[in-house]
């Protein structure tokens, strides 16, 4: 690694931190303009520096490998030590750019969106704080530092979800998010302990270096599997996968920009990032990968079904986020990390866009979130409408929108990868269909048909205060500009993936696995890489371990095209269905839902998962702590026994006291008795 030029990566996270600090400490006194200025300035600067750094990095020779910067030791115990140090490589670069870029746009958006909210400075300092932690997460060069960001973003999201803390629901959501994440972090922690125990370090370079000498754990599970699974737990927490996804929908209590930034674009994808980052470990544990894939599939389809039934616009998006994250996990699960990251990126664009759009809608209809009371907004807010349509096309996977490329890549990999399986593919397609269905449902319900909202709408649930009149209205340009930019990105964002350029770009980060039966591939990784470089346009997957013969690749091309076709078909049919139900035959949905009855309500109520958790875990736990541990053991057993001991002593002492009858003759009696004992004993002693 060459340390010739330092890119001062530390600036990138620290600038937002500075912004956060300034706003946090002195923001109370500032006018809103200044606050906004500061927030934008610092995030913008950080974005700028990120771009600069990225360019510098790309300028470096490809052999250079990751660009490392070591600042200071952080903590040390014996021989074990951790440092403050950043690492810039292809993967973190992508993340960095997404975070700073999308983050900046969302900052801009929020300036207008939050115009009328209380605690303006608080909001922006939190938002900047989030940027800081997120960037630390992605730039860290060791797991502990990543964990810092990991927990930090959790904190930020806690604060932002609970931003409207006057609402109990918001406060609850924030707490729920933090604690659920903590459950995940617990797994992450243990994973780190295992790493320490077995590699004596948390530095990526050292760990992966050490790992690269280990064979894959094809036979049974070993340390690496354990580590991988535990990391997966962490990832599930952050990225809202089954079973820890429950916090994300509630997180929608936060202001919409927050949902866009944290709960769609960036934070929730941290899990995917971590898995991709740890690919050397995951790749060596097929079983772990399988688990990842399965969880991904389940989450994807599960969330999608819920998404279909929701009527709260933000919740629909929330569930779609969950399901898209499932997609990314699926990708990682089939060892197609680059595909996962690719989808991560595109998803960041269009999902952010969707949320911002939704926010704009909500803003426009003065705080209403229920789609059943919207409709026909097309004519009131065209910009919002069309940008959102673009995003929808993207997420639904219509070519040539961004989503298409990434999603198609995932589907293909899930089918063809060494770890793939047709079942995965099938689920993927099904999900794709549902996705496009509920997304268009959203579009139709919101923008088409008649406006169903009451004109003089009472002010919004979260105290959102619009400009008095009830009629929907387009949002100010400061909110629209980001929409437009993101829309553009949602269109062209995917093109970088054409011909596996993206995957190829990431390949330095993805470590090849040397499994016993794969010695061949291992031996000529160079060859593969080279061929990949030349045969770029064939869209030939590189992580696919199947042998590299010409006719094989030709046959594969056919296969891939067919599959592609099917997925496109799925997208279109989703659109069709949505159109059929929500434009053509508006009465149908009710009927169907009625006919489905129980099933429908179950799904509508998100399968009662929250209720089940509440009843199965939380309530028993609280009851246990209260009734058994505290009142039972603490008060009932320990204190009681101590007190009874004391009482016993008192009783004994009363007994002693009773001997003081006050009668002289009794006393003499005692003395005589005592004397007798002494005498007898001594006589015995004397005559022995």
């Amino acid at each position, binding site marked *: 690694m060459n340390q010739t030029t330092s890119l001062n990566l530390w600036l990138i996270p620290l600038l937002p931190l500075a912004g956060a600090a300034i706003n946090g400490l002195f923001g109370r006194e500032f006018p809103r303009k200044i606050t906004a200025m500061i927030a934008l300035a610092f995030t913008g600067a950080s974005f700028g520096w990120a771009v600069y750094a990225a360019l510098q990095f790309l300028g470096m020779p490809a052999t250079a490998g990751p660009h490392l910067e070591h600042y200071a030791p952080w903590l040390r115990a014996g021989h074990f030590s951790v440092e403050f140090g950043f690492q810039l490589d292809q993967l973190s670069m992508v993340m960095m750019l997404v975070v700073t870029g999308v983050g900046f746009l969302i900052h801009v958006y929020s300036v207008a969106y939050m115009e009328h909210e209380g605690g303006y400075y608080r909001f922006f300092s939190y938002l900047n704080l989030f940027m800081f932690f997120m960037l630390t997460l992605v730039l860290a060069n060791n797991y502990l530092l990543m964990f810092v960001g990991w927990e930090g973003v959790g904190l930020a999201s806690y604060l932002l979800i609970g931003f409207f803390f006057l609402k109990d629901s918001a406060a609850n959501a924030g707490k729920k998010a933090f604690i659920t994440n903590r459950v995940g972090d617990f797994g992450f922690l243990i994973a780190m302990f295992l790493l320490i125990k077995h590699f004596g370090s948390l530095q990526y370079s050292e760990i992966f270096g050490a790992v690269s000498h280990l064979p894959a754990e094809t036979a049974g599970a070993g340390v690496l599997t354990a580590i991988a699974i535990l990391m997966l737990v962490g990832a599930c927490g952050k990225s809202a996968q089954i079973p820890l996804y429950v916090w994300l929908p509630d997180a929608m209590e936060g202001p919409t920009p927050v949902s866009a930034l944290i709960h769609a674009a960036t934070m929730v994808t941290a899990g995917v990032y971590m898995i991709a980052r740890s690919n050397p470990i995951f790749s060596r544990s097929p079983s772990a990968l399988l688990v990842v894939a399965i969880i991904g599939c389940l989450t994807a389809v599960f969330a999608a079904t819920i998404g279909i039934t929701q009527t709260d616009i933000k919740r629909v998006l929330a569930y779609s986020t969950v399901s898209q994250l499932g997609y990314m996990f699926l990708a990682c699960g089939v060892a197609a990390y680059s595909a996962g990251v690719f989808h991560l990126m595109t998803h960041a664009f269009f999902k952010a866009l969707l949320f911002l759009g939704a926010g704009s809608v909500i803003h426009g209809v003065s705080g209403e979130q229920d789609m059943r009371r919207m409709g026909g907004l097309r004519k009131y807010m065209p910009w919002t409408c069309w940008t959102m349509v673009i995003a929808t096309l993207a997420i639904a996977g219509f070519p040539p929108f961004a989503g298409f490329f990434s999603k198609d890549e995932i589907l293909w990999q899930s089918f063809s990868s060494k770890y793939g399986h047709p079942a995965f593919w099938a689920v993927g397609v099904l999900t794709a269909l549902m996705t496009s269905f509920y997304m268009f449902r959203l579009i139709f319900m919101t923008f088409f048909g008649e406006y169903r909202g009451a004109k003089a709408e009472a002010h919004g649930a979260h105290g959102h205060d619009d400009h008095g009149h009830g009629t929907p209205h387009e949002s100010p340009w400061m909110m629209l500009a980001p929409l437009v930019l993101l829309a553009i990105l949602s269109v062209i964002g995917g093109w970088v993936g054409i011909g596996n350029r993206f995957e190829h770009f990431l390949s330095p980060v993805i470590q090849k696995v040397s499994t016993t039966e794969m010695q061949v591939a291992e031996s000529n990784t160079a060859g593969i890489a080279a061929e990949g470089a030349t045969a770029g346009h064939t869209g030939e997957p590189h992580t696919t371990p199947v042998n590299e013969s010409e006719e094989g690749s030709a046959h594969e091309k056919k296969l891939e095209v067919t599959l592609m076709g099917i997925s496109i078909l799925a997208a279109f049919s989703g659109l069709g269905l949505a159109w059929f139900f929500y434009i053509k035959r508006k009465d149908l949905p009710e009927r169907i839902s009625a006919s489905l009855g129980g099933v429908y309500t179950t799904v509508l109520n998100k399968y009662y998962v929250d209720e089940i958790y509440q009843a199965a875990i939380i309530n028993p736990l609280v009851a246990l702590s209260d009734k058994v541990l505290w009142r039972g053991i603490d008060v009932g057993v320990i204190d009681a026994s101590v007190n009874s001991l004391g009482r016993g*002593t*008192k009783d*004994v*002492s*009363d007994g*002693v*006291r009773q*001997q*003081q009858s*006050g009668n*002289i003759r009794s*006393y*003499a009696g*005692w*003395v005589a*008795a*005592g*004397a007798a*004992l*002494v*005498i007898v*004993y*001594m*006589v015995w*002693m*004397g*005559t022995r």
Partner: protein
Amino acid sequence: MIPADAYLRILPEIILSVFGIIVMMLDAVMDEHNDRKSLGIVSAVGFVAALVATFYQTTLAPAINTTDAATWWGMIRVDNFSIFFHVVVILISLAVTLMSFEYLSTQNIRYGEYYALILFGTVGMGLMSCAMELVLLFIAIEISSISTYVLAGFRRRAAESTESSLKYFLLGSFATAFFLYGVAMMFGATGSTYVADIARSLQNGAPTLAYLGIALMIVGLGFKVAAAPFQIWTPDVYEGAPAPIVGLMSTGPKAAAFAVLLRVLFGTNAPGWFWIIWICAALSMTLGNLGALVQQNVKRMLAYSSIAHAGYLLVAFTATKDMPLGISAAMFYAASYAAMNVGAFAIVSHFANAGEKYVLVDDYAGLGRRSPVLAAVLTIFLLSLIGIPITGGFFAKFYVFSAALKSNLIGLTIIGVINSAIGAYYYLRLIVLMYMHEERAEVPVQPISFGLGLALAMGVVATLYLGILPGRVLNFAIASAKVLLP
């Protein structure tokens, strides 16, 4: 024919007796109706003089032989041991005298005999610590006992006082008879009443008679030091007797009696008493503490506590593997116990008020607010009784137990430490009441008079000195322990 040396050897006793007589005379010529503070001052002077004399005695050579007139034919022996106890008892009596000025006036007792009796009693105690002959020992014991019998009954119009006096007297003389019988048996066993001779003849093997004698003497002395199972009289007597006198008899005669016990058990090669003392110690500690737990009357509570402390002190006796250590531990304990207990009773007597109305634990509620100084001082004494560091009580306990452990008396030590933990509770109760409760009934508190202040000061200084810099006293004790052993 009697050399001057001989008189020097009993100089403190002489001085005390002279002052006693002076006090009697003055009392006779004084007017019935004015209080006897002046006499108190005179006797205080006497004690100081006696103290000086005692210190002077350190220059004497500790000679002992039965033909030498200079030691009254071996009747007494002036050495570190006797000097140690002389100092202790004289200081005790001095403190008690000082605290009595105020007490007598509040109880309006106008008998100069009070002071005279204390003076003469001190003579007895002094002799107890230096007598080398059992008959003289017996007389000395009787002197100190009889004077305390009388003093205990000094609040003549109070039924409790006379009753306690009676109980003390009857049971006391009962016990004395045992002791005397023991003396007779020793005499019979060895043909002499001189400690030295007895020691010599018991050196190699003792006849059963000697065992019997020791047993009877232990009974008698055990009673005097209020060790279980002969402790039973203590609470009643202490409750009834006038507070300052309780302060006196719970420390002075007791210390002297311990001196005698040491003399008898260690000075005469007495055989076979180990387990008796062991059991006495364990019993005293346990019964004393348990009894004190539920007491409402402070004097009674302190009485039980004094039983417990006698137990701790006896623990030191059982450290026979390293006798000098054990003996010195016992001596040190006696001294520090005297310091703290006299102090405690000084406050009790000050606080008791006319007719000893306020002697209940609850009367002490809120004392910390009403007179912070008094409360603080009492707290120091109580902490010392509990055995909290920087107080003499702590170091004494510490030293005793370390001596015991040096002789591998783990069992006894465990009993001891557990007891000291139990004991903490009832002393703490008082502290808690003083500081953490508001007063219930309006209980008057007089300003602290000069005499009392002096007595308290003595107590506090002694307690802290023994707690923080016990070194010199310890070394003195060790030295005297060495001379005690035959």
